[in-house]
């Protein structure tokens, strides 16, 4: 149904008038031109479209716009502060924790949400939290190391 949906996006209030049953993924990518959030499967099975909603990792392909009304949405574009990479982003660079880079925004946002609730996760907690995010290039080991590094540097901020 056509409605006006207000929410916070990367720290700023936004309001969109559209069909509120549209997926958050495609509203971000088309209406808001935030293309860092990727389509990978459309079924919530790969994690490439992961964003933060009220600090939780959410698959934006399986989230309607109605679901984020009044909430705080963070995408990969919202992590940098004053031109400084977020600790997680920097750790991914430092560990070469990516290859093709297509799953990377979803990986970082999923890890970001993990560090929001568990600032010092164990190796096992990282593996469990990241399990649903798929990487085909095989950067997994470095992604785990990057998350551990970011956690050590206060990556939850």
């Amino acid at each position, binding site marked *: 149904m056509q409605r006006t949906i207000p929410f916070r996006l990367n720290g700023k209030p936004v309001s969109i008038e559209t069909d509120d049953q*549209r*997926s958050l993924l*495609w509203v971000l*990518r*088309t209406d808001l*031109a*935030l*293309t*860092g*959030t*990727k*389509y*990978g*499967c*459309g*079924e919530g*099975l*790969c994690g*490439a479209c992961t964003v933060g909603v009220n600090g939780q990792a959410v698959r934006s392909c399986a989230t309607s716009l109605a679901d984020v009304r009044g909430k705080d949405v963070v*995408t*990969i*574009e919202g*992590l*940098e502060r004053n031109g400084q*990479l977020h600790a997680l*982003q*920097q750790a*991914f*660079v*430092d560990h*070469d924790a*990516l*290859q*093709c*880079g*297509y*799953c*990377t*925004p979803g990986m*970082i946002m999923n890890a970001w949400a993990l560090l929001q609730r568990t600032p010092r996760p164990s190796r096992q907690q*990282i*593996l*469990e939290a*990241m*399990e*649903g*995010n*798929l*990487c*085909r*290039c*095989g*950067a*997994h*080991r*470095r*992604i*785990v190391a990057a998350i551990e590094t970011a956690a050590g540097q206060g990556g939850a901020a």
Partner: protein
Amino acid sequence: MTRLVEVEADAPSASEVDRRTFCKLLGGGIVVLVTGGSSELSAQQRGYPEDLNAYLRIAEDGRVTVFSGKIEMGQGVHTSLAQMAAEELGVELDAITMVMGDTDLCPWDAGTWGSLTTRMFGPALRAAAAEARAVLLNLAAERLGVAREHLVVSRGVVAVRDDAARKVSYGALARGQQIARLVDHKAVLKAVQDFEVMGRPTKRLDAGDKVTGKAQYAGDLHRPGLLHARLLRPPVHGATRTSLDLSRPKAMPGVVVVEDGDLVAVLHADPEQAEAALAAVDVRWSRPEPTFDTESVGDYFVKNSAPGEVRVEKGDVATVLAASRAAGVPVFASTFRTGYVAHVPIEPHTAMAEMLDGRVVVSAGTQTPFGAQARIAQALGIDEKSVRVLTPFVGGGFGGKSAVGQAIEAARLAKLTGRPVMVAWTRAEEFFFDAFDPAAVVKIASALDREGRISAWDYHVYAAGTRAAEVLYDPPAARVTSSPARGASSTLHPFAVGPWRAPGAGTNVFARESQVDIMAAAGKADPLAFRLRNTSDARAQRVLRTAAEAFGWKPGVGPTGRGQGLAVGIDSGTYCALAAEVVVDRATGAIRVVRVVAAQDMGLVVNPAGARLQIEGCITMGLGYVLSEELRFRGGEILDTSLATYTIPQFSWLPQIEAVLVKNDELSPQGGGEPAIVPMGAVIANAVFDATGARLFRLPLTPERVKAALGG
């Protein structure tokens, strides 16, 4: 001011007009073009001017642009090519800008596959950069009034040795001049001991854009008036349409409907509206009867394949095998099988096409921009010059993006609608239209003599081709037969097959190295000692020894119960030995890979960090085709069209991975993107045998198959 200087006398005949056209396209600064070097590279080339396989431009601000028809899909050549250019030119790495996969700006290239970028394009690029440095030194000598041999280059500045104040930058030398130079691999490359950029671990240059979401893939492009297309697809391969009613989507607001022969598409500014319009299409199909399926494919191939083509023949293998049987010496006969495997790049095939000044311009996630250009021109019935293909970052390829169906679809739709069109395959379309790694069968009969040496090796591969099927060991009698040759077998398969990371090599090495392990166990020999005894190949021996040492290999006759396995393969000029440790849950049949150690001899290593990343990637990706991945099908019907049922490696599967690069600087750089995935099937199957005594002959090693092999 245009000035053409120093064109080699023995350079291929080239019209000045063509060269001027290039230079005009690039603007001011120094331009260096390179023609073919090795015969392999030349074999891939088209005519001039497209045969220029590298060029680079030094601009007035000193920035260097390297143009390459190769593309970046994660394998890291965006970084390693920049390293090569920086090294030979004598500039800093961050002075380099890479332009890749643009058919207007980049020299022609056959495609990014086969771990060829570093081996084939690399030497050409290094020669171009070395030549540019020579040209710049000449110009600097003129400018500074000093003989060339008294000059030194550092960070893009030429200075007089012992008088550093007298200097001139590359940018200043390039200013106001346009110098084209054609080289033919004559420039002297830097010696390994002089390397400052190459050979050093270097962080990816594309990482910053990839961690911030700034890196653009084809699907991220936007144009005013862009339409997202959804195409009508058959339910199974080989189905024919019996009725079609497009009246419902036509009545939907904002929906554009296209019907052009086989192409039926609905388009909308919002991809979800296009999806809804597709669901409103009323269509009926007639399905062909399936001839074979996931389980019967192997037998079907053996029965229906063309007669084999003998690729290797040494001695009389049939006679030796018969003599062994007659003498009561055991002959080992095994049949190995693999299934169809999907590429599953996380970015499905995507392309955006638009009409610009009468040309079709397509930005595509592709491994073959020039191939796409030709195919699009053919499909549209227009001249290749009327098609430009650009390649943004590619979200994984693994061979699968050598197929360019989505780019052709986008181009056709842009031409038909006159508007920019995005074709982004869904995950289900990606599974349906993927060009899979083919299912295959390998039959081997081999024999051992009384000294524990392999005496005969009769190898017959069906459908996988002979990549990595070399005998490797030293039997006096050997035969390798392939039927049918890979690529000639398209009628055999009910859907598309194509290159998949080291095409067929994983199948061949799974078969060979499993068979060798079977013989080692039967001959009561340690798998490492048995291999070393049976091969005189020094590079193979070296990687095997290195892997075993790094792993902490404990000699023993399998099955030892320790769960350790060994395998070696050759691919893309590189030798890779893997040693692995597994734990098998006898109750469930589940295999946990605890550790994999790789020893790789890839010649001179350009970027050790990148090489390790590729080895780790190969091992991690390889866990998939070894443990879980097999596309299930019934005739032309693909049964796995979702990640819910087709499982690829996940974080919890992660083994410990160690990569050892075996130093071999005397050998020019060899391939690195594929070799380590090749021995994965064999090393895990051999480790499972060592753990349990059960030998598995079919990939993937699913829990059901492990349980069956254990007799459970």
